[in-house]
């Protein structure tokens, strides 16, 4: 579903790569957690996958479409929720969702059905006619999530989705991810919350200093580290081994 081959990114003026020769494959129908310390390269990777940054080297393939040569088809396969959704403050929630629906070509009846479902689930139905600027951070997250799911994307990408959410909303987010995967789609998300990753992910990848240092199921990671009873936190700390701050 998502394939990164030798993807490298160095920011202007930096002497080290933010993402360094990254190879990664996210399989269809799995929830993949992308972990790493601050500045490890998680957000840079995600921004390259969604087209917000251009990779210096390497290839990104989304649902069989090369992002460089066929960006529109690749982007059609993605639903993206950034860590801090930057939505038009002077539009109503519904106007924003209709924009997304039109851009992705979701027809009226389908749009209505899905909006009823997601807005009801997020308890946004009564607020969706209000201006986005009146929304709380959590409401904006939920609105962005609704927009990202409106076209039922084969690949759902979330950057730090749990930041700023109350426990109830966080629980809802996790349910949505599971539901999306049960429908045959794929979820790729970055997080700092290791418990969430451990609980939710089929596989995790750990990135540090721009390089993928571990990738697999929890059992595979435990086996690889030789610590049968370890939890993800211990494994993470051991693998990243006081990795200092670096380019994000």
């Amino acid at each position, binding site marked *: 579903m998502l394939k990164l081959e030798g993807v490298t990114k160095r*920011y*202007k*003026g*930096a*002497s*080290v790569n*933010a993402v360094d020769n990254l190879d990664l494959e996210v399989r269809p129908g799995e929830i993949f957690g992308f972990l790493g310390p601050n500045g490890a390269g998680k957000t840079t990777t995600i921004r390259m996958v*969604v*087209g*917000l*940054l*251009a990779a210096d080297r390497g290839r990104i393939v989304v649902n069989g479409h090369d992002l460089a040569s066929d*960006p*529109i*088809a690749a*982007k*059609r396969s*993605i639903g*993206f929720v*950034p860590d801090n*959704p*930057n*939505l*038009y*403050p*002077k*539009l*109503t929630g*519904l*106007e*924003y969702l*209709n*924009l*997304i*629906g*039109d*851009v*992705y*070509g*979701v*027809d*009226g009846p389908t*749009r*209505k059905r899905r*909006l*009823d479902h997601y*807005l009801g689930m997020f308890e946004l*139905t009564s607020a*969706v*006619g*209000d*201006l986005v*600027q009146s929304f709380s951070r959590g409401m904006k997250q939920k609105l962005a999530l609704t927009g990202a799911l409106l076209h039922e994307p084969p690949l759902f990408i979330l950057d730090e989705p749990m930041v700023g959410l109350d426990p109830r909303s966080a629980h809802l987010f996790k349910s949505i991810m599971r539901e999306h995967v049960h429908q045959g789609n794929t979820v790729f998300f970055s997080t700092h919350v290791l418990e969430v990753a451990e609980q939710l992910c089929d596989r995790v990848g750990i990135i540090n200093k721009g390089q993928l240092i571990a990738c697999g199921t929890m059992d595979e990671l435990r086996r690889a580290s030789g610590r049968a009873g370890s939890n993800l936190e211990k494994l993470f700390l051991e693998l990243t081994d006081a990795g200092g701050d670096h*380019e994000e």
Partner: protein
Amino acid sequence: MRVATMRNRLWTLYLTLLKDHYGLSAAKYYYFKKRQRTWEPLVIVAGLAPAVVMGMVFVWNFTEKLFMAGLTFGQPHLALLNGALMVSLAGLFFGFFSVITAFFFSSDLDMLVPLPLYSWEVLGAKLAVVLTGQYGINLLILTPLWARYGLLAGAGAGYILSAIVVFFALPLLPLSIASVLAVLLMRAVNLSRHKDKLTLVGGLLLVVVMVGFQVWLQSNLGSGDPEVVMEQLLSRADGLIRAVGRVFPPSVWAAQAMAYSHTGVGWLNLLYLVAASGAALFVLYYLGEKVFLQGLLAGMEGTKGSGRARKVSLSAQSRSPLLAVASMESKLFVRDPGFALNGLIGYVLLPAMALLPMFGQSLENNPFELLALDQLPPFVLSGGLALYFMFMTAMSMIPATTFSREGKYLWQIRSLPLSIEQIIAAKVVGSQVVNIIGCLVGAVPVAILMGWSIWEVLLGSFLGTLLASALAGFLALFDLRKPMLDWVNPVKAVKSNLNAVVGLLIGVILGFALGMLMFATIGLELLWLIPIELLAAALALGLAVRFMVRKWAPGLWKRI
């Protein structure tokens, strides 16, 4: 919940951007759904309507005069050319800033880029929003002009048809040229680490180049023996039209398309205009696909430190809170291209307009020859310079938007252990640092070329700084009354801020009043009184502002 049926994505993108840009959804939400502040649109319409009607009447009358003047030498459609030229040049000049803001400095790009949209679709929708605003302005200017001309010339249906096509085609070319320049500029500057500085310098330079280009064209137009030139212009059919139209040739096509709409010449000119507009749009479309996204992504990428170990000299010298806040005020303004491009343009534009005509011409032919010291009695220059300093602090919009520019970061300054009086004082100092440097950067080259005395310049700068500081205090207080804090795009905090417009008006009115006082003093031949008057005005204004700040600022600060 009303869910829209599916629409064309370019159309829906255009509508969404339009609603966001002009606050249409917000207006509908507040005025109709919430029924809040319903008096606001009425006040705005009531305030603007007389000015708009007066403006349209002026255009109507002016067109008649121009028609009659043109008729005397057989070129009555000079009036049409005048209108086309005005709106085209305004579109080119102001359009550049509008498109660069819409294309590269808007905050929605993070959201739009991951969507499956072609670059030309994003570019096209954003250009269409700017174009819509331009059509609105053109409608107010061109409707009375074209209607009056049509009535005077007894124009027929062909004229109306031609006018409709010209109306839609006319802004396309200047805005496309402005867009191409903006896309190329941003592609170039985004290759550098210092993109903010380069954007600022590049934008300001481009303005100087545009002004220089116009001056060059106009000076070429008037070169040679004026009598011979005028004879040639009047003897050739459309000679004057073509000469004036050299400034922007498509305006000639527009004028001739309408004036000769009953002949093949008119339709041929219309074809030229439409074809040129189409070609410009095609170039923009091509650049949009090839260059726009790269420039945009490079701009969004930002830059990082080198990562190499560097010796950093940590400044451990403590400063007073006033200087610390003042320094923050000036730095934050000049480092953000969204603020700086709009605020600093006057410091470059006015001296450029004064200096550029001097090249290639003797001082006698220069419209600014009056600025030469030997033409001015003593103290008049100092007084003029002082008023320039004062006016520029209003034009820079720094004090008039000082609290508005804090936006969602206002909490930072609110959480400092400083009183609002101290904060305003610091903000005035910060604004004056920029104002003094900005004014001197423009004034010193003019002073050198015109041979001004250093004492006149120093006296003018001193008096000007006092006047400007007092005005800045008032403008900061005015902004504190109702700061515009809910912006996302920094350009809106300065360009769409009513406080900045009011500040500019106050600057003009105060400058006019003091200018009239100076004029009267010159008439009484009491020139030595000019600096004393200005000093007294600065002190009186300063004391009044100090009183107002003490009385009202704490309450206003608490209310935000």
